[in-house]
Structures are given as C-alpha cells and as structure tokens.
C-alpha cells in the first residue's frame, strides 16, 4: 500500500469514522480503552450473538491514528466469528510490533504498516485492540 493511500484511509476514517456513537442497549458489551501515556480515551461496544460479532460501535476523544484504527478495525470485525476476529487482531498486533502477518487478512489495516517508524504512536494504533480483546474474552 503506498503512502498516499495509507494517509487517505487514515484521514477518511478519522473524519468520517464507522459507527461512531456508542450503543449500549441489551446485547452490547461496552469497554473503555485509554492510553496511560497519552490522552486517547475511547469506549467500544460490541454485540456478539451465537459466536458472531453482529455490531460494533465506539465513541470518545482520541487522535487521528487511534480513531481511524478503531473505525477500520470495527468495520472489519462486523460479521466475523469470534475466532476469526481473534485471528485478525493477532495479525494486526503482530504487524504493529514488526512481527509476521497475513497481508490479505489485514487489508485496510495495512495503513498502519509503518507505524513502527514512530514508536510512540504504536500504542495509538493498538488502542482499539485492547478493548476488543477484553470484550471477546469476556473479561
């Protein structure tokens, strides 16, 4: 993915995020996620039924990287089985930490491929993953 496309994806998802506006009604599980070292602070809610993620929403205040990563990740999660979601998260986290990952699986999330070049921003890209893990694992 070229630099310009990455930037566009991030901006597009920051300025017009997917499913911003937190749903909290029955069936949704809400988790807060924030970075201890900075000021990003988001709530994420997922609706999981029969082992499938039926819906995903979020809200809060966070930087362009965190917000866009949350938007892209949640959009990809909707419709996935819990195991598939876990696998996606694993690949995404591995990419951020410069480990091996499946490009075909990550698609738009490849926008954060080079984030390791700015180590202090890795936590921004990983912000949504933490809350999603917690919800999926029932913590």
């Amino acid at each position, binding site marked *: 993915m070229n630099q310009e496309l*990455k*930037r566009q994806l*991030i*901006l597009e998802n920051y300025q017009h995020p997917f499913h911003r506006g937190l749903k909290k009604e029955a069936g949704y599980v809400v988790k807060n996620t924030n970075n201890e070292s*900075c*000021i*990003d602070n988001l709530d994420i809610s997922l609706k999981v039924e029969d082992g499938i993620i039926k819906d995903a929403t979020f809200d809060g*205040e*966070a*930087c*362009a*990287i965190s*917000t866009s990563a949350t938007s892209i990740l949640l959009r990809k999660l909707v419709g996935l089985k819990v195991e598939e979601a876990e696998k996606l998260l694993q690949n995404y986290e591995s990419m951020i930490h410069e480990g091996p990952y499946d490009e075909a699986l990550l698609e738009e999330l490849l926008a954060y491929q080079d984030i390791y070049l700015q180590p202090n921003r890795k936590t921004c890209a990983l912000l949504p993953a933490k809350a999603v893990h917690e919800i999926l694992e029932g913590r």
Partner: protein
Amino acid sequence: MHREDFPFLKTGAIYLDNGATSLKPNAVLKSMMDYYEKYCANIHRGDYQASYQASDMYEKAREVVQNFIGAEKKEEIIFTKGATQSLNQIIFGFFKNHLQEGDEVLLTKAEHASLLLPFLMLEKEIGIHLVYIPLSKEHTLTLEAFQNAVTEKTKVVAIAGVSNVVGDHRPLHEIGTFCKEHNIFFLVDGAQSVAHVTTDVVKDSIDFLAFSGHKMLGPTGVGVFYGKEKWLEEMEPLEYGGDMNQSFSSLGEVSLKSIPARFEAGTPPIAEVIGLKNAIEYLEKIGMDVIQSHEENLKQYFLEQVKSLPQIEVYNASVSGGTVIFNIKDVFSQDAAIYLDRFGICVRAGNHCAKALKEELPVQNTVRVSFYLYNTKEEVDKLIEALSKSDTLYDVIL
C-alpha cells in the same frame, strides 16, 4: 532574555512547555557539578571540611528559599522531592488530623491532581466534604465566587496560586486575608506561581505553600513546602528514618528532632537543593516583576498575531499571565502537538492533569503554550507560522 545562559536552547528547539518543566541555566548546572566535584559529602554527619561545606550550602539554600517566599523563619522551609510530595505531606500529615467528618474544603475543578487527589482520598477516609468553587466563563477563579462558596463549615481553602490549565493568577492576597479573618486554613499550590510571580506568604496570609524546583529553573527531584511554625509543630511526619529522630530504643521510645529536620527523613537531594538555591538567586537577579511582564507581553503578542488565523480557537484570551490554551479547529490536540513538534516546537496537549476540569471546559483537551523568561517574539512568530500552515497538518504527521 538571557538565552545564552540556557544550554538546551542550543539544540534549536522552541521550548514552550514551561508549565510542565523549565529549562536550566548554566549557573544551576554548574553549582550542582561543583558540589559533586568539590565537596561531595553527606550533610549533618561528617566531621570534615567537605561535609561542613555541604551542610552549610544546604542550610543557606533554606534561607534563600525563606527570603524568596517571604517566610518569617527558615525552620518553616522543608525540602521534599517536589510539589506532589509536599502536598501529600501537608494534606495527610496535617489536615488528616485537623479535619473532621463534615468539614468543608474549598477548591476548584481546575486544580492539579497532586492537590485534588490527596483531598479526594481524605474525603473517602474521614468524610470531609470537597466543595468546588464555580469558575467564571473563562474558567478563572474570582474573589466573588470564592466568597459565595464559603460556609460555616469551611475549614480549608486549597487552590493553586496560578492555574496550570488556564493560567489565571488567583487573588491570593484577598483570599488569604479573608481566610485569616475567618479562621480558615489557606493552602496554596505554588507549583505554577512561585516560578512566575512574587510570592509573599506573610503578606498573603498563606498557612501552607508547596512548589517544585524544576518549574523554576532548578533541577528535578527537589521541592519545598512551607508551613507556619505553629502548624508544623502540630504536623505528623509521613516518613520515619535517619536524620529526623533524636533518639530511639528497641522498646519503642522515640523522640523526634525539631522542625525542619523532623520532616526531612533520610539523605535529602543535596545537589538538587543547591541547584534550587542557585535557580532562585538567578530569578532574583532578573526580578520576578520583569519575568511576569515579559511573559504577559509574549501572550499579548501571540494573541495579536493569532487574530489572523481563524482556524485557531483560543480559550483563555482575557486571562492575564503567560499561558495560552487553544485548539486548531477540528484537530485533536495531541495531533496538533505532534504537528508542532515537526517544527521543533514543544507544547503540551491534554487536560493538563486537571481531569476534573473537563466537567467545566467546553473541550476536554487543548494545546497549551506556557512562556518563560527565555522565550522570544521570534519564537512566537515561528509558532504562528507553523499554525498558519495547519491545513497541511495531516500531510505532515501521517
């Protein structure tokens, strides 16, 4: 002013985060090196020249601090590791034993976590009641709002001399006088004020004052608390150990040293105390009035220049002092700070450790620029220039 004295400026950085910490002049760095190189010894212990000299410098520093804040006695000056430790000692060492269930402590939601959190803990622990004085539209504390918030049950007023978020200079003299007349304890968090304006604990009837060396040209790792002698006599130490006891036995008979030693358990930050002494002498040579007006001029200059940039929203324009808080329209403050960093400009993004204030401010997070004596109009120009190109922000940071 005096830029040549500050080695960090040679990096070319434009340092506008003085609310977080200040730069250090050569005189301070040199005084600390001198200690390590020429009379490196513990204080109050050795019977040899280096130890005498170290003890002497350490106690001289106490006098320098005393004169700087206008205290009556040098025994009223206690060295700590910073404003946070000072505030904890005051709140848990004194107020915990002098307040009762139902007593009211007046403060504001703009107070720093280091003042607010210890009191919140005390609220849980002993049932005191925290009362927040409503802030003005510009989030400042007015004398009138203060007076309206006082009740029969008000026992303590605990506020910053200068707010670290909005930067307003609180009317300490009037509040202090009122407190004295009404038998209310007056605790001032001086972390942001002692560095920037003249402090006079006697004239302003301050019972307790806390501040940090690192925000006033001194090193990290040293702070001060001041307490009126009679209150210090009633205060309990939170730390026990060497240098603060007179004698003790295994039977549990303990007698403590008199103030100030009672509150300085263990080996203190000797080099840092000496550095702080030199920092204060440096500030005094320039004059706090000169520093204060220099910062205000820079703020006014920034406000003038920023008028031509409609995308910048300033939240504290009418507040005096050297702090500006703003946002670039539709840009998260942290992204703005990261953008400015690409121009070598250091600013702070966030809620500035006053998390309770988000209940009052129209926005949760802002960019904060805080000036100090070495900042210049040329630096403001560079900040304005960077802000003027903010339409390219995402090209720069992504």
